[in-house]
C-alpha cells in the first residue's frame, strides 16, 4: 500500500491542471440537450482531443495516452476541479469505447474510435424498448439478415442523447425465434439512415435529453455488428458493467459537487444552522463523496494488479446515485425559496446549477439499471441468495 502519488503522477496532474486552466471555457456552455449547446459541447470535445485529453486511457495510436486507471482518476479530478463541461460523448467514450476495445475488430476500432474522440461522431445508446426496461432481455426490435445487411424494424426508447447524436449502439434480435437473452446482436448504426424516425422526449427540465427511435426497414451493413451474431447480450453486459463500474461516473464529479455544497453551506451558515440536520447532511455528503473516491482508487489499484470487476460494482451505482440526490436535496434546502427559480434567469445565479443538478439527480436511481435491479444483483451474485 502506498497512498501517495509518484513524481510522474504528480507531473501528470500538473500537466492536466495547466491545460485545463488555459482551455476550459470561462463561461458555462449551454445545455447539450439544446441544438446550440450540443454543438458547443461538440466543439469542446474536439478541443479536448487536440490536447489528446479526450480519452486518456485509450492506446496512443487511437488518440489516447495509454494512461492507466490511476492516471485516469487524476485526469478526472483535474477535469472536475476545473469545472470543465459535461461530456456530451460520454455514451461513446465511456460506455461504447471500452466494449469496442474488447469486442471490436481492428477495422471497427480504427473506423469509430478516432472520430469518437474528436467529437465528429457523438453517440446515443439504444437499449430500452417500450416493453424492455429493467427487463432488458425482453427486447423485441429485430435485425434480420438480408445478404450483407441487417434489416431493422421496431422501436427503441429512452435513448440518451439521440435527439442530436450522430450514431447509436444497441441490441437487436437477429434470431426471430429466440427467447430472452439468446439470439440478440450488438449493432452500431448512424441515426440518419433512411427509415429511422427520431421523436425527442422532453425531460423534467423541458429539454430533449433522450428520444424514441423508430425503425422501418432500416438497412445496416453486417460490418457494423460488434461481436458475434447472437452474442449481443454478453457484449452488452460488458458495456453495462463499465457503466455501473468505473467509467461513467468518476468520483471526482461527486467530490466537486460535495465541495460546492460545503461552500454553499458556509455562505448560508447562519440561516442553515437553524436546522441542524442540514449541517449533518453536508458532512455526510462530503464523507460519502470521499468514500466513493477511495473505493474507486481501491478498485483501480486491484485491477492494475490483474483483478477483475465483480458483482460488487453494483454497489457503486446505488451509492453514487443516492449521494447525488442527497447533495442536491441538501443544497435546495439551504437555498429555500430561491431553489425553484428557472436555472437560466439572472436571479438564479447561485441556485440555477443546483436546481439543474437536482432534476438530473432524480434520474440517477433509475438509469443504467435501476437501483432495485442493482440490489437484486448484489443479493443474488454477491451474497448468493436464491433467485
Amino acid at each position, binding site marked *: *500500500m502506498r*497512498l501517495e502519488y509518484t513524481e510522474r503522477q504528480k507531473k501528470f496532474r500538473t500537466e492536466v491542471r495547466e491545460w485545463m486552466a488555459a482551455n476550459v471555457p470561462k463561461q458555462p456552455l449551454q445545455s447539450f440537450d439544446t441544438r446550440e449547446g450540443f454543438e458547443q459541447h461538440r466543439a469542446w470535445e474536439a478541443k479536448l482531443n487536440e490536447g489528446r485529453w479526450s480519452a486518456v486511457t485509450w492506446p496512443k495510436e487511437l488518440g489516447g495516452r495509454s494512461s492507466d486507471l490511476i492516471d485516469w482518476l487524476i485526469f478526472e479530478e483535474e477535469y472536475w476541479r476545473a469545472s470543465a463541461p459535461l461530456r456530451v460523448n460520454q455514451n461513446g467514450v465511456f460506455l461504447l469505447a471500452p466494449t469496442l476495445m474488447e469486442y471490436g475488430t481492428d477495422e471497427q476500432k480504427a473506423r469509430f474510435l478516432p472520430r469518437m474522440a474528436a467529437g465528429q461522431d457523438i453517440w446515443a445508446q439504444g437499449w430500452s424498448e417500450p416493453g424492455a426496461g429493467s427487463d432488458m432481455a425482453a427486447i423485441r426490435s429485430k435485425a434480420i439478415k438480408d445478404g450483407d445487411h441487417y434489416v431493422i424494424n421496431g422501436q427503441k426508447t429512452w435513448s440518451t442523447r439521440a435527439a442530436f447524436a450522430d450514431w447509436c449502439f444497441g441490441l437487436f434480435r437477429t434470431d426471430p425465434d429466440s427467447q430472452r437473452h439468446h439470439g440478440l446482436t450488438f449493432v452500431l448504426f448512424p441515426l440518419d439512415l433512411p427509415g429511422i424516425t427520431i421523436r425527442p422526449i422532453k425531460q423534467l427540465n423541458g429539454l430533449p435529453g433522450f428520444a424514441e427511435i423508430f425503425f422501418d426497414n432500416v438497412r445496416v451493413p453486417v460490418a457494423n455488428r460488434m461481436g458475434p451474431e447472437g452474442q449481443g447480450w454478453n457484449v452488452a453486459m460488458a458495456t453495462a458493467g463499465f457503466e455501473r463500474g468505473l467509467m461513467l461516473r468518476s468520483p471526482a464529479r461527486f467530490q466537486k459537487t460535495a465541495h460546492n455544497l460545503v461552500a454553499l453551506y458556509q455562505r448560508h451558515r447562519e440561516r442553515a444552522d437553524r436546522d441542524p440536520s442540514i449541517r*449533518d447532511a453536508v*458532512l455526510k455528503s462530503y464523507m460519502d463523496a470521499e468514500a466513493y*473516491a477511495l473505493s474507486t*482508487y481501491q478498485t483501480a*489499484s*486491484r485491477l492494475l494488479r490483474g483483478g477483475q470487476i465483480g458483482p460488487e460494482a453494483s454497489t457503486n451505482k446505488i451509492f453514487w446515485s443516492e449521494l447525488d440526490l442527497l447533495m442536491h436535496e441538501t443544497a435546495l434546502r439551504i437555498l429555500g425559496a430561491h431553489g425553484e427559480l428557472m436555472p437560466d434567469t439572472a436571479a438564479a445565479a447561485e441556485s440555477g446549477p443546483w436546481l439543474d443538478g437536482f432534476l438530473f439527480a432524480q434520474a440517477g436511481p433509475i438509469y443504467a439499471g435501476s437501483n432495485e435491479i442493482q440490489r437484486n444483483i448484489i443479493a443474488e451474485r454477491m451474497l448468493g441468495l*436464491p433467485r
Partner: protein
Amino acid sequence: MDFTFTEDQLSLRDAIHKFLMVEAAPELLREIWETEIGRSAELRAKLADQGLTALSVPEAYGGMGLGDVDWVLIQQELGYYAIPDSLTATAYLAVYLSKALPENSALKKHWLPKIADGSARVAVGHPINPFVADAANANLLLLWHDDELHGVLPADVTLTLHPSIDSSRRLYRVAWTPTAKSRLCGADKGAALWQGTIDRAGVAIAAQLLGLAQRMLDLGTDYAAQRKQFGKPIGSFQAVKHHLADVAVKIEFARPVVQRAAYALSRHDPQAARYVSHARLAAGEAARLAARKGIQVHGAMGYTWEADLQMFMKRAWALDAIWGDAIFHKARLAEAVLADGAPLGPSETFTH
C-alpha cells in the same frame, strides 16, 4: 499510488481467518461470557501462538515489528469473530504508548517481551472512556493523568465492576493515585501520545466494526437462505434481499475509508485525525445498519438470546461508543471539514 495490501498481509489475514473460524466458534464465545473474568487464558495462548500479541512489538523486544496497516486487516478478523480478549489494548495500544519512551524504560525492557510472548495483559485508561476495560485481569495498567502517561500495577488500584450488555466486556472504574514513580511520560510528550492512542484505538474499532458488520450480514444471509415461508427461502423475496444488499453497500464504502485511516497513521499524516473520525462514523453506520437489518431478517429469532446474532450486535453497539462516540467523531470531522481553507474536493482524496 497503490491501494492494495501485500501478499504477506493478505495471507496472514487469511491464516487468522481460518484459525479463528475453528478456535473462536460462537459456542466458545458463549462459554467465555459465562466466566468470571470474561477472558480465556487458553484463547489468549492460541492468539499468541499465531503471533498476534507480537505483531507490532519491535523485533528487538521479541516481536514482529509490523505496523498500523498490518493491524487493520487483523482487526477486521477480530471483529468478525467478536474475539473476547484485551489483545488490542495490550498488543497495539500499549505497544504504541511504549514507543515514545526511552530504550531503558521498564515498559519497554520488562513489559514488551511479555506482551510479545502473550504472558502480559495491559489495560489502557483514558478519560474519553468512563471505564477501563479488562482492568481486573491486567498485569499492568497504563493510565492517563493530565496528559501524562502512568504505569500502575494491579496492587495499586481499586476496581469497581460495571457490567456491560456485551457479557464479554468487563468494565471497571479505577481508583488510583498518580505518583512521580508511576509517571512514565510527562504531559509535554504525553498529549500527542494520547491523541495517537485515541486514533489507533479508533482505527482498530472501526476495523472491528467492519468485521462485525460483515459477520452480521453473513448470519442474516445464511438465515434468509435457509428459513422458509410461503414454501420458499425468505431470501428469495426482494424485500429481504434489499435489506441485506443495503448492508453490503454500507460495508463496501466504509472499508476503504478505514484502510486509508490506518495508512495515514502509519505515515504520521497531518489529516489522520479527520480520516480516523470518518472511518469511525462510516464503520459505525455500517455496523448499526447490519445489526438492525440482521434482526429484521432473523425475525423473532433475532430478538432471542439463542441466536448467535446477539453476540455480534452487542459488541458492535458497545464498540461504536468507546474511544470517542459518534458525537466526538462527528464534531472532530466537522471541525476539519468546515475549517477555512480545508483541503476538500477532487484531487484532495489523499494528503499531498
